[in-house]
């Protein structure tokens, strides 16, 4: 006691052992299964793309903090790491390296640090980076690579277009679900990841496993992912019920594209989602509706990135109108 002066601080004097760093690394852990699947399916290109994104995100984070913001660097907090991984997960494996780097710069430089860094950004950095690339390089961003030789039972299905791409293109040119059916991967393939698409959205099963881990660790609450997926299922279900020839069934919609990746990992980004449970539900319904609208009626085969970004913009409004109920604000005194 003599050696070190006694500490004085305000209450409380104890603290729970959850830290934001641990939350972040839990997300990283949750993403590992999906990463392994994509490396299995796409091989080295997946590895290169992911590494590039992660390294460049961390590097930009470091450089910006050190030389532009002139603050302490907080690389260890894991947020840039997640941004890097999730950015890569939203890109086709083997995208030219310089494009990946450009995307990282946009994600970290424009979407995150221009707003002041971790916690202040309004829009999901990884998605801003992804959409920037999608708009800038539509060809490369929709060039889905073939799976590595001999992977999986159904090599054919892995080539070329994504499930949603096939649907969009086919239905637009007068085909019907029944004529398209042979070209759509089976539910099993989509679960396991033997389809085509962005690097990280391949295997629904791996993503769900990670999502389950996040839920179990209470990193995320169930509200956003469940409501997003339920809304999508409901909406696509209605269309499908009315006209099954021109609308794919809900299962295809849920298992294809970035629905699960988006719902569990990107829509749940703590920083860019509402703080209250009520708000989260509204936010998630918005994402579900917009995703389905864009998928069914817009130009883009997949809409969840845009849907999340658009709803990100609504978060301040949602936080404003869906506040927790203040204790004692609705007096329900019932004195006998």
């Amino acid at each position: 006691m003599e050696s070190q002066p006694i500490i004085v601080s305000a209450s409380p004097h104890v603290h729970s052992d959850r830290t934001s760093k641990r939350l972040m690394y839990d997300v990283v852990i949750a993403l590992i299964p999906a990463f392994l699947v994509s490396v299995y399916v796409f091989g080295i290109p997946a590895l290169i793309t992911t590494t590039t994104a992660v390294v460049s995100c961390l590097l930009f984070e470091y450089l910006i903090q050190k030389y532009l913001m002139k603050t302490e660097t907080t690389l260890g907090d894991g947020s840039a790491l997640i941004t890097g991984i999730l950015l890569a997960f939203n890109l086709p494996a083997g995208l030219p390296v310089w494009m990946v780097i450009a995307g990282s710069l946009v994600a970290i430089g424009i979407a995150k640090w221009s707003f002041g860094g971790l916690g202040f950004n309004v829009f999901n950095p990884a998605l801003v980076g992804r959409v920037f690339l999608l708009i800038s390089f539509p060809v490369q961003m929709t060039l889905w690579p073939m799976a590595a030789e001999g992977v999986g039972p159904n090599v054919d299905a892995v080539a070329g277009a994504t499930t949603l791409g096939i649907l969009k293109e086919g239905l637009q040119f007068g085909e019907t679900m029944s004529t398209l059916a042979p070209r759509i991967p089976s539910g099993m393939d989509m679960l396991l990841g033997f389809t085509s698409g962005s690097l990280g959205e391949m295997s629904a099963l791996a993503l769900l496993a990670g999502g389950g881990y996040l839920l179990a660790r209470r990193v995320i609450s169930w509200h956003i992912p469940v409501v997003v997926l339920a809304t999508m299922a409901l909406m696509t279900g209605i269309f499908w019920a009315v006209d099954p020839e021109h609308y794919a069934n809900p299962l295809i919609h849920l298992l294809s594209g970035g629905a699960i990746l988006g719902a569990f990992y990107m829509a749940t980004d703590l920083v860019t989602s509402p703080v209250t449970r009520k708000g989260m539900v509204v936010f998630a319904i918005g994402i579900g509706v917009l995703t389905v609208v864009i998928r069914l009626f817009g130009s883009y085969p997949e809409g969840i990135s845009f849907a999340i970004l658009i709803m990100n913009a609504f978060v301040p409004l949602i936080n404003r109108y869906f506040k927790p109920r203040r204790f004692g604000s609705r007096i329900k005194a019932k004195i006998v």
Partner: protein
Amino acid sequence: MEYWVILISAVFVNNIVLSQFLGICPFLGVSGKVSTSVGMSGAVLFVMTIATTVTYLLHQYLLLPLGLDYLRTITFILVIAALVQMVEIVLKKVSPPLYQALGVFLPLITTNCAVLGVAILALGLVDASLLKAVFFAFSSSLGFALALILFASIREYLELANLPEGMKGVPINLLVAGILSLAFLGFAGLV
């Protein structure tokens, strides 16, 4: 063009602020508070509608028949300027308390380039009619309102952020508008 197409287009796909670049000044300048932007949206709704009605009629039934469509710009701007002033006078005349309440609540109803722009764009609609022109003005002001209110709420929120020194003020507003506009590209092809 069908009405719902006009609506979806003006609000989402070709939002007048985020993709047509009309009314940027009030968008960047006066949208710091959500409640004000809601009020302002109401005012813009009325002003745009009435301005478009008058200018459409003027164009269709005076300028075109007389072969004077090259006077479009000058007549429109005069008419709009006078009209907005008229509305104010009338309001003040008929109900001073109402007028004053508005004065406290709404800093200004700018006649900005959005009003003129919408009036001109309304003339160019496919198989235009008065009804369509008015509906277009209405939809455009809804698009304006959407952008304005979203933007105001984001700005209120950013007041609490630790923005980098250089980003404060206009740059961050432009950046938010940019990302918002990027997100709205997702609506492409809805109409």
